[in-house]
């Protein structure tokens, strides 16, 4: 027998008494980690769902003037045209990406089926701005498709399902307004909490020039703009207003001449709400941690005190201070590691299993926020650090104290 083996043998014999502490640690770890994982998951899902429409996106629409301008009467309609895209891009250096978009509700048929869907004409940059991620084996429209006006189409997953069932539509023909197109990609499922014209799952996208052959209106429905930095959204909006005002002759401040949907500003509000929820959950977590820590600390302290007499015996037969502290240290670390480890493993598995639950991408509901809990390393590290320190103090403090006093004082302890 060596000292570590003696420690181990003593530990094993009193394991039943340590079981409660181990369980408390396990349970505390599990509940804290789950709470935090759900909070984190909700925040992330919010961000994901917001980026379902697009990330840092400003949409510009035409309108009708509400103010007279240099002798022109109010009430003039303002429309946007394809050339506005380059006009703005050349003049506003803060613009990273920009794309026109036109759409119409049209007949789409394939595979002997016929449906009516909104069909859009746009460019490759649209895909990047509006998170149009293709399913495996397909792609979004690219620059060459747009430049050459290729007869290709990118379709939402519901359109794909409606026309092709479970078959892969990529490479198959679809007919839009009697003109045949080839499907080049299907949108991968995503959660999307904000939209115009319905969810992207229901849409069909064509290269801008190809679209113009179906829909001969010159004016476009809207322009999508992504600033280089999210913080520039206000500046970009103001510049675009001024430039369009100069071109189409309206007062830049005229709220009705053009309209803007600035998702960046929307997101700021949404994020504030979720930040609030996160802080709230963090607070609950901190309180739970506090209660748990007090419980565990108390248990550890009680057990360690109970053993004061044993410390006295060991000191009486010649144990050095180091031996006493070593034993308590090792035991505390071991019990702590064991409880935390199983708590972590369980929490990890619970999260993993919950994440297996499918999310209904077609009716985006509360489950999308709840069914995607996720771990963050910071949570785990912070938790372990706080509880570790508390455990260490509670487990080892009585031993430290006892190994400083006369053995007889510990021996008398009942």
């Amino acid at each position, binding site marked *: *027998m*060596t*000292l570590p083996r*003696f420690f181990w*043998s*003593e530990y094993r*014999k*009193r394991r039943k008494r340590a079981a409660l502490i181990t369980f408390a640690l396990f349970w505390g770890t599990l509940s804290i980690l789950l709470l935090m994982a759900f909070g984190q998951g909700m925040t992330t899902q919010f961000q994901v769902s917001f980026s379902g429409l697009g990330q840092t996106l400003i949409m510009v629409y035409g309108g009708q003037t509400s103010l007279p301008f240099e002798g022109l009467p109010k009430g003039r309609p303002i429309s946007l045209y394809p050339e506005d895209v380059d006009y703005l891009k050349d003049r506003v250096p803060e613009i990273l990406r920009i794309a026109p978009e036109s759409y119409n509700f049209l007949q789409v048929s394939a595979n002997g089926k016929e449906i009516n869907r909104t069909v859009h004409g746009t460019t490759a940059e649209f895909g990047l701005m509006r998170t149009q991620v293709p399913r495996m084996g397909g792609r979004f429209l690219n620059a060459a498709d747009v430049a050459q006006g290729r007869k290709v189409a990118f379709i939402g997953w519901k359109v794909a399902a409606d026309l092709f069932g479970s078959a892969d539509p990529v490479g198959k023909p679809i007919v839009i307004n009697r003109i045949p197109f080839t499907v080049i990609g299907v949108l991968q499922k995503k959660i999307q909490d904000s939209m115009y014209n319905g969810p992207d799952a229901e849409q069909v996208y064509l290269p801008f020039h190809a679209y113009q052959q179906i829909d001969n209106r010159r004016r476009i429905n809207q322009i999508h703009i992504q600033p280089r930095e999210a913080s520039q959204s206000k500046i970009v909006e103001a510049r675009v207003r001024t430039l369009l005002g100069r071109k189409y002759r309206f007062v830049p401040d005229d709220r009705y001449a053009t309209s803007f949907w600035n998702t960046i500003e929307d997101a700021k509000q949404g994020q504030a709400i979720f930040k609030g929820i996160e802080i709230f959950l963090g607070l609950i977590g901190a309180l739970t941690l506090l209660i748990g820590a007090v419980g565990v600390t108390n248990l550890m302290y009680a057990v360690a005190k109970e053993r004061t007499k*044993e410390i*006295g*015996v*060991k*000191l*009486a*037969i*010649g*144990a*050095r*201070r*180091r*031996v006493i502290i070593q034993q308590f240290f090792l035991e505390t670390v071991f019990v702590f590691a064991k409880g935390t480890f199983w708590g972590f493993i369980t929490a990890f598995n619970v999260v993993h299993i919950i994440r297996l639950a499918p999310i209904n991408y077609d009716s985006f509901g509360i489950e999308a926020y709840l069914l995607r809990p996720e771990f963050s390393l910071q949570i785990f590290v912070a938790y372990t650090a706080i509880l570790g320190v508390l455990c260490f103090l509670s487990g080892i403090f009585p031993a430290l104290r006892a*190994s*400083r006093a*006369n*053995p*007889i004082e510990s*021996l008398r302890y009942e």
Partner: protein
Amino acid sequence: MIELQDITKVYRTGSQSLEALRGISVKIGKGEFISIMGPSGSGKSTLMNIIGCLDTPTAGEYVLDSDKVAGLTFDQLAAVRNRKIGFVFQNFNLLPYATAWENIELPMLFDGKNGRRRRERVTELLNAVGLYEWRGHRPSELSGGQQQRIALARALANDPPILLADEPTGNLDSKSGEEIMAILTDLWREGRTIVMVTHNDHIAAHSERTIRLFDGQVVA
């Protein structure tokens, strides 16, 4: 050689203070067999604990083999308790989670003795106290007499020259008590210094000399 000079021990509990020992001076030579007697509360245990380096006096000087005990560090005192002094308690004070074997082995483990020496010594001691068959049992599975014999074996593990026993037979029936006394007498014959507290004149009769305490002072 144990030399106590004017030892005082004051216990403070709250605002009250109690003088358990008042100026005790005692010399115990090497190889002596001493018994300490006195009424309950006269300070016998307090004195034994000080001699055994389990407690420190409030005042006075304790010299053990020409070392001033007051000048020793915590770990040096631990070494004294480990090698020089074997202590037998009235209530045994065995470790409840350790077996008889482990309890006896522990002082040697703390001393860093190697495995073979420890095994030999534990076997020897278990045989000497007649409890070899009980080596795997925990204290709670042993009778009081058996526990006291294990405690005695533990006190002897590192072969200390001094053996202190605070009412070693106090919790035992007379037969077990006599067994313990027989062992103590043998140990004394082997040359050990033995100091024993007892209430029993019959037990005290085994010793060479009796120190009587009354109210914290030596009376004879």
